C-alpha cells in the first residue's frame, strides 16, 4: 500500500484521474474572493439555538439535509465511486480557510487530517465558548453524504480543533 501526502499535488493528481474517468472535475460550489470567517460564529449560535429549543435530533436532521441536498453533487460523485471529488472539496475549502491539514489518498480510502481547524479556533476567539456540538456539522453532514452510497465516512475528533475524516468502501 503506497501512501502519499497530497496537499501540494492533489489538484494535478485529481485532474488527471478525473479526466481519465471522464467525470466532471469541477466542484459544484467553487468559491473565490475573500473569506468571512465570522459565519462560523453564526453557525455556533445557530447550533446552540436549535438544540436548546428543538433538541439535538432536529439539529442533526438539518445537517442531514445539508449533506443530502446542499451537497447532492458530491454525494452523486460518491455514489458513482468518484470519492476524489470529496477530497477536492476538502482541499479547496480548508485551503481557503487557512487550516493546517493534509490529505492522504490510496486506492481504498482517502484520509483528511485536520491538525488545526480555523473554523473552531475562530469561534473560540469570537465567543469564548464553542458549542460542544460544533463538530456535529462535520460528523452528521459526512454521515449524510455517505448514506445510501457504497462508502462510509468516519469522523474522529482528535482533540479541540482537530479531527480525522476517512472515506472508504463499506465492509
Amino acid at each position, binding site marked *: 500500500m503506497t501512501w502519499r501526502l497530497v496537499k501540494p499535488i492533489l489538484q494535478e493528481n485529481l485532474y488527471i484521474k478525473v479526466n481519465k474517468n471522464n467525470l466532471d472535475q469541477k466542484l459544484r*460550489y467553487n468559491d473565490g474572493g*475573500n*473569506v468571512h470567517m*465570522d459565519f462560523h460564529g*453564526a453557525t455556533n449560535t445557530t447550533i446552540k439555538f436549535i438544540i436548546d429549543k428543538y433538541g439535538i435530533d432536529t439539529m442533526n436532521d438539518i445537517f442531514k*439535509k445539508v449533506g443530502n441536498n446542499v451537497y447532492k453533487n458530491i454525494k452523486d460523485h460518491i455514489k458513482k465511486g468518484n470519492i476524489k471529488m470529496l477530497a477536492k472539496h476538502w482541499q479547496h475549502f480548508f485551503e481557503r480557510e487557512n487550516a493546517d491539514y493534509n490529505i492522504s489518498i490510496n486506492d481504498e480510502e482517502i484520509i483528511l487530517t485536520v491538525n488545526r481547524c480555523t473554523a473552531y479556533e475562530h469561534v473560540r476567539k469570537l465567543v469564548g465558548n464553542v458549542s460542544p456540538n460544533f463538530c456535529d456539522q462535520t460528523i452528521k453532514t459526512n454521515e449524510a453524504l455517505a448514506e445510501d452510497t457504497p462508502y462510509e465516512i468516519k469522523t474522529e475528533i482528535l482533540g479541540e480543533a482537530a479531527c480525522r475524516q476517512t472515506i472508504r468502501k463499506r465492509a
Partner: protein
Amino acid sequence: MIPSDHFTRFYNEVFKFLEDQGEEHLEAYWLEISKNQEKHTLELFKEKGLKGMYEYWDHIRIEENCDMDLKLDDEKLELRMNVCPSLSKVLDNDAEPMKRYCDHCAGWIGPLIDKVDHHLVYDVIDRNKPQCVVKIFKDKEKAIEEEKNAKLLMGWPKKKK
C-alpha cells in the same frame, strides 16, 4: 466543517425548518442572530451613529464580496446592494431555496437599528433577485416618508411604530 463560503446554504436549511414551525419561530431565530451581531456592532453604532454603520458595512462589503454601493450623508446611510452574495448562493444551490430568504436580513438588522434609535427602511424590491436598497435615517419622519417609495418594504420583529 461547513465552509464559511457555504454558511448561507446552511442558513437556508435552518430557515426552511423554522418556517415550517411557524412565524414566531423564525422571528425568535432572527432575534437571536441580532443579539449575536450586537457583540460587534452595538457599541460602534451607539458611539459613532451613521458613521459607525458605514464602517461596519464597508467591512462587510469587502469581506463578504458584495457588489454594493455605500453612501453616507448627514441624514442617512444608503446601502445599494447590486449583487447580494448571500441570496446569490442560496439561489445557486442544489437544495430548494427558502421563498422568503431575504426577510432574515431586516429580521436581524431592524431590531439592532431600533436599539440605537435610528430608523431603517428596507426595500427588498423582489425576493427572487439578489438586490436591495437599505436606508438608515436619523430622523423618523424622513424614514416614514421614504417607506412610501419602497417596492417591497420589509418589517421585523417588534418594529417600532
